[in-house]
């Protein structure tokens, strides 16, 4: 019998559409794995058993009637708990939001995935209010890395990384303000897509930093990223940033070609400060792609600094009233960062926004010369849960704000990125590499990721989970 918990979304959809297996069978397999193992992983904060079963029955009824539920027919998925799910409060990883009224409708991206046949299985753990790169939630406990449960998933979309790597669902959604899709993708060994800023609607999600917030998918194959991405694109007048442009859907075939693409390694800032495994992973990908050119990315440190300051200030602005009235209910680490953020001078933040325009122009000029840049996703493999500091560039630095040093300059100007999972020889833990493309060219980043996957250079296996002690 097929184990549906290790199948990709594409495999599930094809089999469900053909009538070879029911959506209910797939959903029950995933729910059984969640029920058996999630107490040891901490991926979910809400499992929507009844909703998922009802939805699967509806998909199966469509198949019986000869109707096509869509390209994601019967694909189970789950979302970071900052996405609205009708009927439950949107926690955004917090204690405070437990007092909110239940959401009256699903987030737009959930609606779009379900309109294409997918089935929501629940809400996922995350760092409080997304101000986190570790995946350690103060209230719900940490999400644990399925490949090594004493290690971090990365965050803030920690549950999104854990659920996909554990084989609970083949597809999850996360958010990425400074790296919160790419960091857990890297540490959990997944493919993660942070689309171009403004590509996917953020309607019905709890915000963090409006200037920098993105939503996107994590999965165990590049094809699954493309399938879900195609289903989620499209204008949304409710999100003022969401683009009206409509590009052709991304099609990845079994013989995806990367011929003709100009690919370079990102130099300078992206070659410094990380551990050796981060640079070994980049070298492995560059060798596979035949990359010989290195382009120094000038001002990347300033881009990271600017994103850091904008995040502090906009995050504080969002939470200012709650900091007055509910300060004791925050994760102390988040609270102190937000309180300090309220004190960041406006002149600094405005200068950061001005620099954003300059850095965008600088990178647009660079993308006249190349189509793709290769850079590390994280400075190291997953640290241990509870680890507070690590050594970067000869300095002891806090883990929480620094796991995203290589992702932060890229999302600062909204470039599309696919993080691909690399397994270095002898290492039990994966690490990600960023495939970075020009604005609106998600198709190129996905093509490169798919080529690397097809040719065996990257992979996202389901973790082997320990049987629960009886």
């Amino acid at each position, binding site marked *: 019998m097929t184990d549906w918990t290790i199948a990709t979304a594409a495999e599930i959809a094809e089999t469900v559409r053909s009538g070879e297996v029911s959506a209910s069978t797939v959903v029950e397999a995933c729910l059984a794995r969640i029920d058996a193992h999630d107490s040891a992983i901490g991926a979910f904060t809400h499992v929507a058993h009844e909703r998922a079963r009802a939805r699967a029955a509806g998909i199966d009824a469509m198949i019986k009637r000869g109707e096509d539920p869509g390209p994601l027919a019967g694909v189970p998925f789950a979302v970071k708990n900052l996405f609205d799910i009708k009927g439950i409060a949107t926690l955004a990883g917090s204690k405070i939001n437990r007092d909110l009224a239940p959401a009256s409708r699903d987030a737009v991206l959930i609606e779009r995935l379900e309109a294409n046949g997918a089935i929501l299985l629940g809400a996922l753990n995350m760092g409080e209010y997304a101000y986190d790169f570790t995946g350690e939630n103060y209230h719900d406990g940490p999400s644990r890395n399925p490949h090594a449960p004493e290690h971090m998933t990365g965050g803030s979309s920690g549950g999104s990384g854990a659920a996909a790597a554990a084989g609970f669902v083949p597809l999850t959604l996360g958010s990425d303000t400074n790296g919160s899709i790419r960091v857990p993708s890297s540490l959990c060994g997944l493919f993660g897509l942070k689309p171009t800023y403004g590509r996917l609607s953020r309607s019905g999600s709890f915000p963090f930093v409006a200037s920098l917030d993105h939503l996107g998918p994590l999965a165990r194959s590049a094809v699954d990223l493309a399938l879900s991405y195609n289903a989620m694109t499209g204008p949304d007048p409710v999100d003022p940033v969401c683009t009206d442009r409509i590009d052709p859907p991304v099609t990845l075939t079994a013989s995806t070609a990367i011929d003709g693409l100009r690919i370079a390694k990102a130099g300078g800032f992206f070659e410094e400060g990380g551990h050796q495994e981060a640079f070994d992973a980049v070298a492995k990908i560059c060798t596979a792609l035949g990359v010989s050119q290195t382009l120094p990315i000038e001002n990347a440190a300033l881009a990271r600094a600017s994103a850091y300051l904008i995040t502090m200030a906009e995050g504080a602005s969002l939470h200012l009233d709650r900091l007055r009235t509910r*300060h004791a209910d925050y994760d102390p680490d988040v609270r102190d960062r937000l309180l300090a953020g309220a004190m960041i001078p406006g002149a600094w933040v405005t*200068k950061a926004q*001005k620099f954003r325009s300059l850095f965008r122009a600088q990178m647009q000029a660079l993308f006249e010369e190349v189509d793709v840049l290769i850079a590390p996703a994280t400075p190291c493999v997953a640290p241990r849960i509870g680890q507070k500091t690590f050594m970067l560039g000869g300095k002891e630095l806090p883990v929480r704000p620094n796991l995203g040093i290589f992702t932060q300059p890229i999302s600062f100007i909204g470039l599309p990125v696919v993080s691909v999972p690399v397994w270095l020889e002898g290492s039990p833990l994966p690490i990600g590499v960023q495939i970075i493309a020009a604005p609106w060219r998600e198709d190129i980043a996905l093509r490169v990721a798919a080529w690397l996957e097809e040719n065996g250079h990257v992979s996202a296996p389901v973790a082997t989970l320990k049987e629960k002690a009886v």
Partner: protein
Amino acid sequence: MTQDEFDPDAIARSMLAYLGLPDEPAYRPGIVAHLVAARGIAAGLLALPLDDEAEPAPVFKP
């Protein structure tokens, strides 16, 4: 006090009062650490000369 010397604890206390935010002793070390880190991170950006015509990108379009 020179330009490079500042008292983050005094700034934290003053700004908490200015902003009407809670000044709990237990919060202060964390706030101070973040203020110091942010000033260090900002230094390079603040040293960068910008033209007067430079436009911010509050609604950013790639």
